[in-house]
């Protein structure tokens, strides 16, 4: 088996295994909206337990401008829960990816995630442990919160199974919390979201919802998960070269969405079936520069005219970001896994500029406009014409790759297709 071309399951398969697309369950328990946000009381049946696994190790990615000088990272890799530690180490050690896989769970599903620490190839002297911190989760114990100083951490060649029972639907994020000033910046970050129990019922023409809104107001046709980050190469190079880096000197040079900087953000989700030109291959010095495809997550948003689109946004950078989608207004309906509603008061808001600080999450709806030949349009071979809108950082300093001329950084495209695309199967699905 060639580990570089197929890092375990492909991303789409992985998301399907995570329970996405499961048929909706009956809502015999009913929906109650209380002053503390909507809560579901006594659902009819507890859904099955979802069992997943992640491996933590080091690796390399490519940032634009350093194609010949891969950037050192730590990362989480999706792996099989039944694999032994020895086989995980021999298959995946040194092949980290960034960002970590997007997790999708159903409200009230039990979740078990086994984390295996594979160790670091580039730094055999560094015996760091790793953890999983599900950021924002209402925890029933510190044990699974992933903060080493108040619970436990997973050392090299060991495993721990984390347990979660998500009560609150919405968008969250997850990251390693072991020496997190370092481990978060150096790549151990991902998005996780919880689908509401309301999913599968039909309200207002929608069967998929961001929250148990009771009235369909958070219904969507397609959803996309985008994790914002920055990259401060000094920290990454320092870790690679056993040099100390002063965290309070933080000064990033690259700005990413799902681990990629524009124009990488426009490439589709990675797959071994893609032509090389549509993949981000990074020579991995851990293995004699054999190519890893270590940035698998796209941020390209492809939609049909009239689609109601949900953006699940999370920020695990250390900077505040102000995002815009010129030409399309944004309806912020949720934040921090909370429906923007207090009792009967609707606190959702419309905006053209979305602020999101570090550690925060936002659920944003927008309506894809009608296709128009009068607007700039481009041809997607085999799929016809599409209009382009951008989703980008308002701070133009974050639209550059290490200050190089030209567009870069925290920007992606929203493409509205004249000929409708097929329905979406998984979050952030891309169409080649």
């Amino acid at each position: 088996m060639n580990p570089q071309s197929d890092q375990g399951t492909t991303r789409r398969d992985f998301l399907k295994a995570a329970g996405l697309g499961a048929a909706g369950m009956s809502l015999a328990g009913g929906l109650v909206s209380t002053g503390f946000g909507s809560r579901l009381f006594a659902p009819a049946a507890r859904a099955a337990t979802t069992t997943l696994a992640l491996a933590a190790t080091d690796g390399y990615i490519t940032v634009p401008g350093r194609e010949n000088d891969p950037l050192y990272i730590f990362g989480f890799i999706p792996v099989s829960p039944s694999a032994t530690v020895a086989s995980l180490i021999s298959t995946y050690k040194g092949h980290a990816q960034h960002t970590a896989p997007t997790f999708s769970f159903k409200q009230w599903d039990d979740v078990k995630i086994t984390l295996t620490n594979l160790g670091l190839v580039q730094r055999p002297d560094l015996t760091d442990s790793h953890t999983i911190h599900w950021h924002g989760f209402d925890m029933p114990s510190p044990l699974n919160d992933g903060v080493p100083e108040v619970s436990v951490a997973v050392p090299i060649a060991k495993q721990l199974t984390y347990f979660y029972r998500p009560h609150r639907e919405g968008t969250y994020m997850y990251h390693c919390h072991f020496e997190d000033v370092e481990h978060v910046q150096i790549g151990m970050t991902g998005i996780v979201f919880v689908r509401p129990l309301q999913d599968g019922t039909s309200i207002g023409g929608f069967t998929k919802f961001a929250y148990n809104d009771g009235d369909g107001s958070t219904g969507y046709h397609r959803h996309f998960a985008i994790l914002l980050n920055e990259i401060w190469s000094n920290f990454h190079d320092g870790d690679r070269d056993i040099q100390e880096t002063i965290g309070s000197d933080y000064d990033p040079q690259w700005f990413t969405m799902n681990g990629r900087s524009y124009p990488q953000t426009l490439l589709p989700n990675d797959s071994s079936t893609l032509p090389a030109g549509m993949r981000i291959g990074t020579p991995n010095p851990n293995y004699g520069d054999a190519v890893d495809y270590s940035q698998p997550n796209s941020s390209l948003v492809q939609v049909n005219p009239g689609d109601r689109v949900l953006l699940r946004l999370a920020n695990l950078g250390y900077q505040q970001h102000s995002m815009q989608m010129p030409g399309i207004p944004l309806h912020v309906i949720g934040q921090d896994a909370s429906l923007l509603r207090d009792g009967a008061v609707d606190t959702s808001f419309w905006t053209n500029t979305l602020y999101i600080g570090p550690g925060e999450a936002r659920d944003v709806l927008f309506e894809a406009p009608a296709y128009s030949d009068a607007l700039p349009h481009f041809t997607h071979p085999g799929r016809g014409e599409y209009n382009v809108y951008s989703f980008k950082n308002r701070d133009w300093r974050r639209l550059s790759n290490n200050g190089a001329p030209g567009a870069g950084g925290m920007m992606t495209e929203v493409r509205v297709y004249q000929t409708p695309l097929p329905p979406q199967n998984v979050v952030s699905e891309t169409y080649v």
Partner: protein
Amino acid sequence: MNRTRRLGWLLALGTVAALLAQVPAGALPPGSPKVGLVCTPGTVSGSTHSFNLVANAGHIQTPDGNHILMWSYAVAAAADPTDLWPNFQSPGPVLCVKEGETVQIQLHNNLPEPTSIVFPGQDAPVTAIGGSPGLFTNEAAGSNDVTYTFTAAKPGTYLYESGSNVSKQVEMGLYGALIIRPSAGNNLAYGATTPFDPSREFMLLLAEIDPDLHHAVETGGTYDFTKLHNHYFTINGRSFPDTLQDNGSDLLPSQPYGALVRIPAHIVQPALIRMLNAGTDNHPFHPHGNHTREIAQDGRLLLSPGGARASSERFGETIGSGQTKDYLLRWDDQDNFNPISKPFPVAQPNYRNLTFKDGLTWYSGSPYLGYKGTLPTGTTSLNICGEWYFPFHSHALNEFTNFDEPFGGMATLLRVDPQGGCFTFPSSTTILANGGTLRSGTYTYLGLDDSLYYRVNSTTTGTTRTASWYGQFSTIPNGAKNLVVTYKGRNCGTGTATACPATTSKPTTVSIWNWATSAWVTLAGPTPVGTTDVTFGPIAVTGSPTATSWANYIGTGTNRGRVRVRVFTTGTTSFVSGGNLMQLVYDAP
């Protein structure tokens, strides 16, 4: 990367009880709580509330061993020669006043340049007497005074800070919190719609420090404010883990305010967290473990146009430079996992596969609230009785540092206490002289109300047969309060035909050992106890010698941390004393 920790790291929360809890003279009012908001009383005369403040220079300490010059407000008082840092505190004193009061603040300036106070958010005019007009308000030159007067018109959380040479003076530390309580009651944040538990009120005042600028001020050097580069990040004037030390900690004489947030699980009214940002940067603050509910911003309740509450829940909220935000916090736990009736659906992790970072942890060894488990030898636990700890910290993780050391800076912990206090069970049993002999069982049988009994045969001769034994609780912390004892047991006949042969009921007394007087103090009984379990308690142990001190019941020296509860039963025929459950509940310090 592994980092060495300075000694200060080890002097963190769990061992605070062993440290002097005395409040340094001139720092905090007597009777101030060790955790939570500390108000400066000032002087109240009719409807006027006045404070006498000074602006002083002093030094603060950072956990990585640094020593930084700060300028700050303090309460003007006679200097105490035993206090190394007289009349200095960082941040400035928390001023708590009541809605409608006339607030009068006299400021005496001990700094080498003119200074002043401005009150952002006070819409009513602030009049100033004395000093000379500055850019924003009257300011007092060095060694001079100025007095400010205004009406505390609206309840809320506000900052006060210097209005003179602000780029330098506010950076140097001239800021503090002003709390205006609604006239409707001290248990309301803003009014009837925002009740909170007044014993759970917390302040988190955020700021940053550029040590180079402070050094330049200290040495008379030059500095460029546009090159501000912060390396220290504070909550209530301290960086983590100093944020966990008590209010008025002797270790931090010029930084009197701690930032630990401590609530019981299932708190009835929510805790109130008042956040203020006195710094130049916006700070994204992240509570672990539960959502907080943001109810107000800049001293104004978040309301719909119709006046209905429009709060929102957060697990990450950026508080902007100069802003204040108020949050309610309740520990919501829909699962209530416990080891007896609802254990976690996954096996407990094996320590062979885990590490405790740096051999130091706040973990109790058990994931269940109120329970302590075992930890590997050599691991120091700061956990007292199975309470939970969750970090509250800036998620701009470059601020989660003390200069170059991670896990520091703008962070504190949330401590969730078990409902009803810490509970514990005996770790040994002893049968007293002339108190009978062991029949069966060990101390572990006293840990659960079940079918297992710790059983003691009474004496078998004489007109009075006696069973007298005690369960010993250990590691009860110095300063534990509100001891509550529960005992459940029965008396059985001496036969072996059944588990509990019939016998007449016998008088049973439950007592607690007073180490100071070397005597057993009766808690309950004598009560007739037969073959059916009788429950004694929960019995509140009265504090001795004062109502708030239970120290005489907690052993010291070789008996450190020990509490003994005796079960004493007599009868005219031989019998078996059977203990089912013996429990001690207490509030940890």
